[in-house]
C-alpha cells in the first residue's frame, strides 16, 4: 500500500494507524463453541501480528492466550492461521496481510484454548520417525565422523526445521490420517536419511520405517507444506526423493 504513496512516505514509515484484528477465542470453562472477537490496536510500520496480540493481552484483554517465546522466528511457538495461511505471528507484519487481520489457531489441530492448540499428536509424529542419529559405527573415543561440506550443504535447509507445525497443519492427508507422519516428521527423517554419516544400512532402515500404507506414499503433492514453511523448507521435495528411492530399492530386489 505504502509504496504507491510517494508523498507521505516518511509519515507512512512509522504510522500505519489503527488496525482491526479478529481473533479466535475459546475458553473451555466459558464457551461451548468458539467465537471471534474484534480488537483494534495502534500499529506502526514494523508491528507484527504477535506484537498486536501482546498489545491486546497487556492492555485490553488479559485472558487472550497465545504461545510465544523468542520473538525471532526460532522457537516455533507461535505458528497461527493468519488471513488464510499458516504463518509465524512474530515475523508476519500486520500491514502485509491486510485488514482485518483474522487470527485463528492452527487448522487440523485440536484447540486447548484460544490460539493454543494441542501439539502432543504432532510431537508423537515427530518421534515416530526415530529422529535421532544412527551412525554407521560406534565411534572410538575422540573420533569425529567425517562429512563433506557438500553433503552438509544438502541438508542445510531441512536442518532448519523449528517444529512449528505449520506444514502439518496445512496438509490434508495429515489431517485425516493420524498415522501419516506428515510433512514435518518426514522432512526430519530426510535430514537423517541424507546425512552421509549414517551409512547405507541406516538409510535402508529409515526407508523401511516410512513406507507402510500410511507412510510416504500418502503425500499428494499439495505443496501446502512447502508454501507455508516459515523457514523455506520443501517437505514435498524431501518426501518425493525418499519415495523415489524407496521404489527404486524395491524394484531392484532381485539384485540382492
Amino acid at each position, binding site marked *: 500500500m505504502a509504496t504507491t504513496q510517494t508523498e507521505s512516505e516518511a509519515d507512512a514509515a512509522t504510522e500505519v494507524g489503527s488496525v482491526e484484528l479478529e481473533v479466535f477465542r475459546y475458553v473451555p470453562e466459558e464457551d461451548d463453541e*468458539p467465537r471471534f472477537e474484534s480488537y483494534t490496536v495502534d500499529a506502526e510500520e514494523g508491528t507484527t501480528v504477535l506484537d498486536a496480540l501482546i498489545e491486546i493481552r497487556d492492555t485490553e484483554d488479559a485472558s487472550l492466550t497465545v504461545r510465544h517465546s523468542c520473538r525471532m522466528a526460532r522457537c516455533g511457538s507461535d505458528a497461527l492461521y493468519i488471513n488464510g495461511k499458516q504463518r509465524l505471528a512474530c515475523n508476519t507484519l500486520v500491514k502485509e496481510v491486510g485488514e482485518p487481520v483474522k487470527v485463528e489457531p492452527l487448522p487440523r489441530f485440536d484447540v486447548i484454548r484460544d490460539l493454543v492448540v494441542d501439539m502432543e499428536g504432532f510431537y508423537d509424529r515427530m518421534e515416530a520417525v526415530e529422529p535421532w542419529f544412527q551412525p554407521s559405527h560406534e565411534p572410538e573415543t575422540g573420533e569425529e565422523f567425517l562429512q563433506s561440506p557438500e553433503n552438509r550443504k544438502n541438508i542445510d535447509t531441512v536442518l532448519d526445521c523449528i517444529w512449528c507445525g505449520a506444514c502439518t497443519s496445512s496438509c*490434508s492427508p495429515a489431517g485425516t490420517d493420524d498415522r501419516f507422519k506428515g510433512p514435518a516428521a518426514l522432512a526430519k527423517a530426510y535430514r537423517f536419511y541424507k546425512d552421509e554419516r549414517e551409512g547405507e544400512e541406516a538409510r535402508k532402515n529409515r526407508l523401511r520405517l516410512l513406507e507402510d500404507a500410511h507412510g510416504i506414499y500418502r503425500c*499428494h*503433492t*499439495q505443496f501446502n507444506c512447502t*508454501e507455508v514453511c516459515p523457514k523455506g523448507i520443501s517437505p514435498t521435495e524431501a518426501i*518425493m526423493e525418499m519415495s523415489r528411492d524407496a521404489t527404486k530399492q524395491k524394484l531392484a530386489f532381485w539384485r540382492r
Partner: protein
Amino acid sequence: MSKDTRVETYSRGLIEDPSRWKDWMGGMWAFYLHRFTGLVLSFYLVMHLFVLSTGYWMGHETYTEVMQAIAAPKVIHVMELGLFAAFVFHALNGTRIVLFDMMRGLEIQEQLFYLSVALSFAIVVASAPFFLLG
C-alpha cells in the same frame, strides 16, 4: 489428535477443511480436482461396464438399442463432454504428478497446475464440436 492429552480439547472437525476453500493455493486445488475427477471416472467405469454388459447378457440387438437410446438426448452429449474434460485434466495433472515423482518441476508446481488447467480447457473447447454434434 492424541489420546494422552492432559486437557479436554476442542476438535473443530474435518468440516473446517473444505470450508476454507477460499484460502486454497494452487497445489490444493490440483489435489481436490484430481481427486474429484478420479472419483467421477471410477464411477463412470463401473457404470460403463454395467451398460456394456447388455451385449453379453441380452444379445447384440438389445445392446444396439440401449446404446442408441442412451446416446439420443442432447444432455448426454454435454455430460460426455464433461467426462472427457475430467479425463483430460486427470491425465494432464497426472503427468504433472509423475514429473514430481521423478523430482522434476517441483519449483514450478503451481505454474504447472495452471498449465494443466489451461491445456485441459483448450483441448476440451477444441473437442466440444465433436461431442455436441456427433
